[in-house]
């Protein structure tokens, strides 16, 4: 047997477990998705039939009104034009025909490209989907005589489009379920395997070194549980015996000096792992994002001062949110270090839940915006507290992993929160969606209370030991080059392209909010899917610098592609590419910033502030110039800015490297 039973590949096991869970859950959810699609298909058939019947009866009532006035069916004027108008109004109708008593056509109109001939109605297409009754016949009666028939045929393309939308909805639900499954699987892997093993290792190593002052949480699989109980008991036994010993005897015994035994009560071992923040942060992110999908509509409908336009009203909560997070960004990090990440996170949960609840129960735009501001403050403090916890829990300094985990969880929450918020609001109303968000916030607090008990959640040792301020060193040029060349362009691009241009361009192309939301979701999905891989490559592969450069080039390419390809698929491809590009940038940029600044705290505080300021500036500039410059030019300008930024940053790195070397040498 090899030397180390406990040197088992925990990363490998985690990856394997995730893959196993992913395969298992994916198979189940895809099968459930197929069942859902078939069930939806069957269940909406009666409603679709009702719709077509109603359209037919509408046409019939108009015709019958003419007949009641004594006009014979064949002589009703403008019948063709009326049928054409009806066809324009109702997308689901492919053809409307008015036939005489002998089935002779009197008037008919069909959509361009419609299947010709009534016999097509029961064809293969109609059989594969639920809406089999694609043809309705409604008799036209005058007195006691049947004078004609109205034929209404449904448009199979319209039906297919509906079905495709249902399929997309199911896919979104499948993705949400998968993201949730990953979070649960990781939590289970951590709590049932990794943490118990690590606790035992820590306890044993301590006791081998002669330290009997720490005990750990009981529990663990089979023999592991027994081992923990045994070695915890060792600590307790020695502590009790030590406590019973007179102080003089303790001091006199030379053999006792080689051991560290707790004199009063053994300390409880509190290991910190980056994954401690996962469930709490995920739920918190879900809670804050539930309102995103409908907040502009909700805000626009709220009572507002007369001088405020509907457009500004719709955007006001978002503006307040951005300003509040930007203002708080420089202070949230120092707060988390001074008071402890756990405490700050838990303290942020209650205001966030209250703000969400309040937003659901008020009907005044100003009040809604103020509560959105309160939620933004809570969001900034809670998320930065989690990031601070993850950084301190990381085993390696300046590793990309804590940032990668943080980003993936945040974006997973954004993805699920916006999808769930839209679903709940659509079905149960806005108020219930806000209540759902508040419940998620409370659950995140409970998860934080249970999971974030590691030492990484405590106050910063510097603040704890002496309240003496640290001597501040000057931040190097390469750090500022990162802010100017990478952080600002990246966040400006997100604000301009993802938040501003995409919704506007797609809306002007005739796409509804649901389609726009689905396209925008792809940006966040890229971070969830590729985030862990990027962290791994940044730490163990080509390194963060390569990731930054690749990410910036991909982002610039995505923006530039919009100048010649900006239909739905062009936008979708650009969003996906930008999502991947920004995933390549975000976590490595934090690792590079922490390394360049030399100290994580201050450097990251600057970076967080600059990120928000960049987003705000981008949004402001876009709002001012988008109309006059046009989407194509704006996209090209953004591509140029991103490209120039990375060239500037790479140049600054080359210049500062000899300086660093000479200083170090």
């Amino acid at each position: 047997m090899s030397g180390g039973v406990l040197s088992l590949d925990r990363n490998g096991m985690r990856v394997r477990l995730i893959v196993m869970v992913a395969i298992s859950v994916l198979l189940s959810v895809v099968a459930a998705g197929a069942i859902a699609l078939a069930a939806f298909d069957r269940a909406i058939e009666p409603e679709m039939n009702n719709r077509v019947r109603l359209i037919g009866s509408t046409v019939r009532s108009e015709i019958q009104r003419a007949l009641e006035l004594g006009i014979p069916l064949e002589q009703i004027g403008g019948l063709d034009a009326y049928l054409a108008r009806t066809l324009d109004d109702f997308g689901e109708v492919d053809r409307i025909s008015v036939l005489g008593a002998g089935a002779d056509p009197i008037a008919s109109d069909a959509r361009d490209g419609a299947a010709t001939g009534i016999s097509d109605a029961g064809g293969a297409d109609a059989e594969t989907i639920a809406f089999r009754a694609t043809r309705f016949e409604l008799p036209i009666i005058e007195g006691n005589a049947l004078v004609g028939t109205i034929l209404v045929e449904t448009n199979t393309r319209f039906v297919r489009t509906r079905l495709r939308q249902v399929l997309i909805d199911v896919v979104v639900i499948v993705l949400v379920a998968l993201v949730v499954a990953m979070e649960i699987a990781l939590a289970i892997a951590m709590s049932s395997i990794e943490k118990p093993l690590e606790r035992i290792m820590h306890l044993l190593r301590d006791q081998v070194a002669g330290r009997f002052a720490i005990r750990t949480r009981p529990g663990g699989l089979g023999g592991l549980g027994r081992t923990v109980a045994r070695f915890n008991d060792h600590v307790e036994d020695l502590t009790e015996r030590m406590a019973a010993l007179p102080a003089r005897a303790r001091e006199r015994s030379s053999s006792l000096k080689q051991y560290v035994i707790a004199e009063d009560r053994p300390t409880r071992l509190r290991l910190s792992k980056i994954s401690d923040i996962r469930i709490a942060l995920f739920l918190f992110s879900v809670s804050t994002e539930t309102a995103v999908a409908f907040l502009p509509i909700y805000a626009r409908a709220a009572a507002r001062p007369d001088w405020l336009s509907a457009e500004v009203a719709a955007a006001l909560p978002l503006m307040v949110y951005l300003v509040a997070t930007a203002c708080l960004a420089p202070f949230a990090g120092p707060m988390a270090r001074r008071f402890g990440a756990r405490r700050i996170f838990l303290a942020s949960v209650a205001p966030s839940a209250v703000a969400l609840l309040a937003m659901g129960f008020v009907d005044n735009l100003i009040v809604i915006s103020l509560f959105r501001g309160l939620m933004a403050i809570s969001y900034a403090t809670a998320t930065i507290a989690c990031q601070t916890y993850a950084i301190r829990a990381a085993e390696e300094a300046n590793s990309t992993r804590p940032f990668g985990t943080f980003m993936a969880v945040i974006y997973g929450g954004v993805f699920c929160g916006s999808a769930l918020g839209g679903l709940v609001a659509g079905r149960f109303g806005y108020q219930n969606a806000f209540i759902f968000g508040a419940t998620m916030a409370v659950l995140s607090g409970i998860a934080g209370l249970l999971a974030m008990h590691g030492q990484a959640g405590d106050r910063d040792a510097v603040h704890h030991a002496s309240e003496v301020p640290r001597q501040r060193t000057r931040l190097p040029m390469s750090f500022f080059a990162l802010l100017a060349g990478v952080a600002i362009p990246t966040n400006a691009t997100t604000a301009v392209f993802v938040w501003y241009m995409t919704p506007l361009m797609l809306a002007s192309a005739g796409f509804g909010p649901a389609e726009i939301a689905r396209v925008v979701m792809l940006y966040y999905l890229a971070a969830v899917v590729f985030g862990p891989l990027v962290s791994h490559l940044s730490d163990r592969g080509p390194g963060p610098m390569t990731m930054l450069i690749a990410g910036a080039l991909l982002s610039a390419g995505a923006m530039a592609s919009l100048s010649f390809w900006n239909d739905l698929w062009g936008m979708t491809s650009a969003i996906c590419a930008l999502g991947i590009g920004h995933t390549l940038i975000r976590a490595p940029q934090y690792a590079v910033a922490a390394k360049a600044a030399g100290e994580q705290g201050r450097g990251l505080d600057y970076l967080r502030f600059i990120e928000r300021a960049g987003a705000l500036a981008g949004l402001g500039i876009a709002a001012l110039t988008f109309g006059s410059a046009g989407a194509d030019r704006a996209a090209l300008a953004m591509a140029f800015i991103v490209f120039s930024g990375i060239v500037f940053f790479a140049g600054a790195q080359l210049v500062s490297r000899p300086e660093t070397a000479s200083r170090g040498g």
Partner: protein
Amino acid sequence: MAFFWRIWIAVIAVNLIVLSIFVVLATVQFGNINAGLAADRLNVLANRTVAPFKAVAEIGLSLSTVRNARALLERSRQSDDAIVSIDVFDADGRILHSTMDTPAAGLLPEVQATRRASQGRPWHHETATGFLSGVEIASRSGGSAGGIMITYSNASNVARIRGVGAELGMGALMIFLVGSVLSAGILGLGLRPQIAMFETLEKTISDFERITWRSRGHDLLDGQKPAENELMQLLVGAEQNYRTAGDALDQAKEGAH
């Protein structure tokens, strides 16, 4: 096998949670799709019904002046048994005409909010008992002269949504049962090295426990082969340290006396 069973239970628990979430979300989404389709249909009906009232508003008269309003509304109401009532309201939401004998005085506040949010477009609101679908009627000046609202019983829709929920629930249960068996196979194959490693770990702990209850002196490995792996070394080292620390405490206690 404790490791395998723990992981298997965890995986099927995740599967169960995810399938439950899926069933709930999919049922909710079906409700949304169904409501959207019903709203579209009711809008068609509302548009058809609104025509005579529009004509009145276009010439600048109040909607309350339409003489045969109830008959016009009743004709539309009879087109579908599920229509509970059709109401005509003014710009402030006061009910002017209705198919009901004792109509409400005005629109509900939440319906007014939905109306405001729609900004003149056809709107739709869902309550516990039915769908409300409305279209606005523009006045001569371009503002709202009021509108028409159809209240539609959602009993059949609720039954349909419950039916879909039950069908999905049953399907999910079958998938869960089959998936649980399949995941046992997948885990057995995929986590074979980890399962073997945990079995070795269990054996090491059992061996250590045997050594401790068989040992007579302080040297746990006295006369036995040296610890063969890292875990055994740590277990033995920690146990030996505990015993010698205990001895040191005993000696100190005796010295004090």
